[in-house]
């Protein structure tokens, strides 16, 4: 076989291997995205806004799929992101459980649920910064982890409306912005806590 047809054949084989590689990654990412389903079921059972929860669930599954398929720092951020999402979701649901059916009546909701969502948002932001500090390129980790935490929190805080979700996002941003700027500017290897 002369050189040109051999090169064409090699390119064809490489293209086929790349397609198989991408398809396998996509299938595996889909399996990872399905792990979000129990959280979605709980959210649909506990939160009275099925449309908003369904949209957020789709967004969360798409984020997990994309991060896992993309791999590298995006994929490595998934544990921290899902932990943050569970934290914010659990905080809102727990506050609601402690307060009883406050969201239906409106009594005491803003006193307990909104601070719970804000605290969980701040903690999720801190978790994201700590996780991203271990990466040479922190931005993909921050993006993945923060988005999953925010979506999880929004699912849980949806029961008290935009106030809970807004408080959670503001608190998370207050931690993430300075933390993220510091992480991007620092030389890699600098300890987060000196």
């Amino acid at each position, binding site marked *: 076989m002369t050189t040109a047809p051999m090169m064409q054949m*090699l390119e064809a084989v490489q293209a086929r291997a790349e397609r198989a*590689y991408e398809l396998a990654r996509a299938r595996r990412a889909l399996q990872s995205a399905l792990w979000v389903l129990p959280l979605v079921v709980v959210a649909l059972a506990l939160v009275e806004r099925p449309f908003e929860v369904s949209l957020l669930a789709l967004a969360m599954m798409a984020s997990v799929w994309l991060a896992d398929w993309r791999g590298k720092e995006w*994929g490595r951020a998934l544990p921290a992101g899902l932990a943050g999402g569970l934290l914010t979701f659990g905080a809102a649901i727990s506050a609601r459980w402690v307060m009883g059916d406050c969201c239906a009546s409106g009594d005491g909701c803003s006193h307990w649920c909104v601070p719970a969502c804000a605290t969980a948002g701040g903690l999720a932001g801190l978790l994201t910064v700590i996780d991203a500090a271990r990466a040479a390129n922190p931005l993909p980790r921050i993006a993945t982890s923060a988005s999953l935490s925010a979506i999880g929190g929004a699912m849980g805080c949806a029961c008290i409306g935009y106030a809970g979700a807004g408080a959670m996002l503001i608190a998370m941003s207050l931690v993430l912005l300075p933390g993220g700027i510091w992480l991007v500017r620092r030389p890699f290897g600098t300890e987060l806590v000196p």
Partner: protein
Amino acid sequence: MLPADELDGLFARVADGDRAAFGPVFGALYPRVHAVCARITGHGADADDAAQATMVKLFEQSHRYEPGRSVLGWALALAVWEARTVSRSNQRRSARSSTELALERVEDLGRPADELLADHELEQLLEGAIADLSPTHQAAVHATLRGFIPADAAGAATLRKQRQRALVQLREWFTRRLRPSDPRSP
């Protein structure tokens, strides 16, 4: 050619999702995989097929790679497996095709002879049966076999009646002739 530890590091990056490492890993592994496949299959096209299947499987299963293990060893083990599979498949195919060919030859020789004999016997029997009919009924049978359709309704009705009578006589003729050793038969 990349050293083994560098190749392992590159493949670990591929397994982690680093697309930039794909090309160097492919370029380093394919010639070695192809050489193993060629040695086992002995044919250029078969070696190409086996090497392609190996590379596809290797990258498809890259997420199973454990850092620190030899990717070259894994790739060559896969190559040996794929090359043997291709060789076995070829052997089965060639064995099947030779058997099918032999069967076709036997059928070419045997079946037409049987059919010819059966056709010949049936023709003789039919000729004898038709010859025993009256001339009118013989004409009706020949007209039917040739697809003759009378132009007028009266002619068609007549032909239909003659055909029915001829068929009754033919049935009786066949019943008499084909009845097994009846002592009362003429």
